[in-house]
């Protein structure tokens, strides 16, 4: 996509409503043991957005993602996909729905079938997009393109099993899958939490590249405000199943309004403004 096109796609009038929800609710258990995991949430996500949902564990982030993916049922409320109410009542319709919406999960090690080689993982994606009739040469060309998109060497990947790769490489292969599938929406559920800080930068840059080059809408789930601030345009803060605050990344991070956001920001380790107890200590023990 050229820069002109990007600007066109991101301008308010041209943005298409991609995914929206009205009064989405999820209740686990019943009677006395009722737990409200997601509580009457409304949202509107547009194409080309990169959205972060931030909250501590147990705030309902993952439940929301599972509902959007259709992995758990919705207790109440409606989810609209590309302007129409989504219909995933049969297996066939679900498959059709998943062509438009895909996910990357937290743990790359358990995301793969250990009996399938890497080529077959990628080949499945080509087939799912309707490339079953293509010639073998064309398929390999597509796989090579996907691998080079994520800086993996395709020739080293063939004839290997996913568990022979490192965590960072596996997560990159996951992104190569997404590149081949080209869904409209990508849900990334803490994709960097099990990867060390050095490979994290590459993963984040690839997500940004997916957005910029393919125009995918990405929902990024995290508990780390630093990550959310770096990647996203819009940040949603989730507390106990509700969005307590949302706005552009700069607005939310630099001028938080909700108490909960302030507390989250305060709990993230920072380098220019260290925690009170570490600051006091450093002043006492600082070398002369």
């Amino acid at each position, binding site marked *: 996509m050229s820069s002109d096109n990007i600007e066109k796609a991101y301008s308010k009038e041209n943005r298409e409503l991609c995914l929206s929800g009205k009064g989405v609710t999820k209740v686990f258990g019943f009677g006395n043991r009722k737990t409200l995991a997601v509580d009457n949430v409304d949202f509107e996500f547009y194409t080309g957005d990169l959205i972060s949902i931030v909250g501590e564990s147990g705030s309902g982030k993952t439940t929301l993602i599972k509902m959007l993916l259709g992995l758990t049922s919705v207790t109440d409320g409606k989810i609209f996909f590309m302007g129409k109410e989504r219909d995933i009542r049969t297996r066939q319709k679900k498959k059709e729905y998943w062509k438009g919406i895909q996910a990357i999960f937290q743990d790359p090690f358990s995301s793969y079938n250990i009996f399938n080689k890497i080529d077959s993982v990628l080949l499945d994606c080509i087939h799912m997009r309707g490339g079953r009739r293509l010639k073998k040469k064309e398929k390999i060309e597509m796989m090579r393109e996907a691998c080079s998109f994520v800086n993996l060497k395709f020739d080293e990947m063939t004839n290997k099993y996913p568990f022979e790769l490192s*965590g960072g490489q596996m997560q990159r292969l996951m992104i190569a899958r997404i590149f081949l599938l080209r869904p409209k929406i990508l849900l990334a559920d803490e994709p960097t939490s099990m990867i*060390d800080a050095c*490979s994290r930068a590459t993963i984040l840059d690839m997500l940004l590249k997916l957005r910029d080059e393919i125009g995918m809408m990405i929902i990024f789930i995290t508990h780390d405000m630093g990550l959310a601030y770096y990647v996203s345009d819009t940040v949603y803060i989730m507390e106990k199943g509700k969005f307590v605050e949302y706005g552009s990344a700069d607005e939310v991070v630099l001028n938080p309004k909700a108490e909960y956001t302030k507390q989250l920001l305060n709990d993230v380790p*920072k380098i*220019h*403004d260290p925690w009170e107890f570490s600051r006091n200590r450093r002043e006492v023990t600082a070398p002369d």
Partner: protein
Amino acid sequence: MGNIMLEVNGLTTKYVTRFKENVYAVSDVSFTLEEGRSVGIAGESGCGKSTLALSLMGYYFAPLHYIKGDIIIDGKNISGMKPDDVRKNVLGTEIAYIPQAAMNALNPTRKVIKFIEDVIRAHDPKATKKDIFDLARQRFEVLNLPVETLYKYSVELSGGMKQRTVIAVSTILSPKVLIADEPSSALDVTSQKMVIKMIRDLMDLGLIKSMIFITHELPLLYNVTDDIMVMYAAQLVESGTADQMIFDPLHPYSKGLMGSILVPEDGTRDVKLVAIPGTPPNLKKPPEGCRFAERCVYATPKCKVSGVAYHDFDNNRKCRCHMSENELREAYANEQ
């Protein structure tokens, strides 16, 4: 200058694989740790941080093998001791270790007080139940943990609470050195802060004399420890105080590592993250020259052939690089 609590000289250990290949996961590591100070170890995954932690305990079992080097804790050399002696005389009283998944260490069928009983009885078989309970209650009160936790099963506790309980149990005998191996990486930010606050409290109250903290989260390290050491491919490459290391790294690898810092602060959004290109060397056959030479932008032909010692720089810093401090600074200035 406080007493030296831990002194490590040229520690080298290896793993032996199924195919009898040697993997040198810690090679020639030397550092000292003074009383009342804490040091952090940073590095990529697979660089030997956790193996260093295991090696420091002196508790070797296959596939980890000790090759050479001294580990001196408060004047007592523990390297080369038998595993049984180490378990009875060193672990718990001299060194305590908190692994990454510490919360999974609690047996779900026993109450928390039972674990404390086990730890104390292992070192003092004659301890009475009352003594144990008094000690446990006093320690939990000091650390702001609810005393009822002692009579709970581990499944009744939340993740952060479990982690804090494990830390309280493992430091109940007031060890001289605490080794914390990513104690907070499985927790969210709120519980992470509580865990870190507790570890800091332990240090400030003098219940543990010194601490080694391992993580790859640099902003966290800056908040927790006084000094930071950076490890690459089984060797230490640079050490200095936290301020020096975060704001003024000298070694090209530390410089690259500091490029991966993500914090929600004004101005950080516009700075592009830089990942270090390439992959770390294979530790089965470590390269002869500088181990970082393959990935280093400033490498000269000399770097690839001859190795370099871990030598002193100004301001109590140490670095493993062929270039001098001025040369490095010049190189970085030219870059910008």
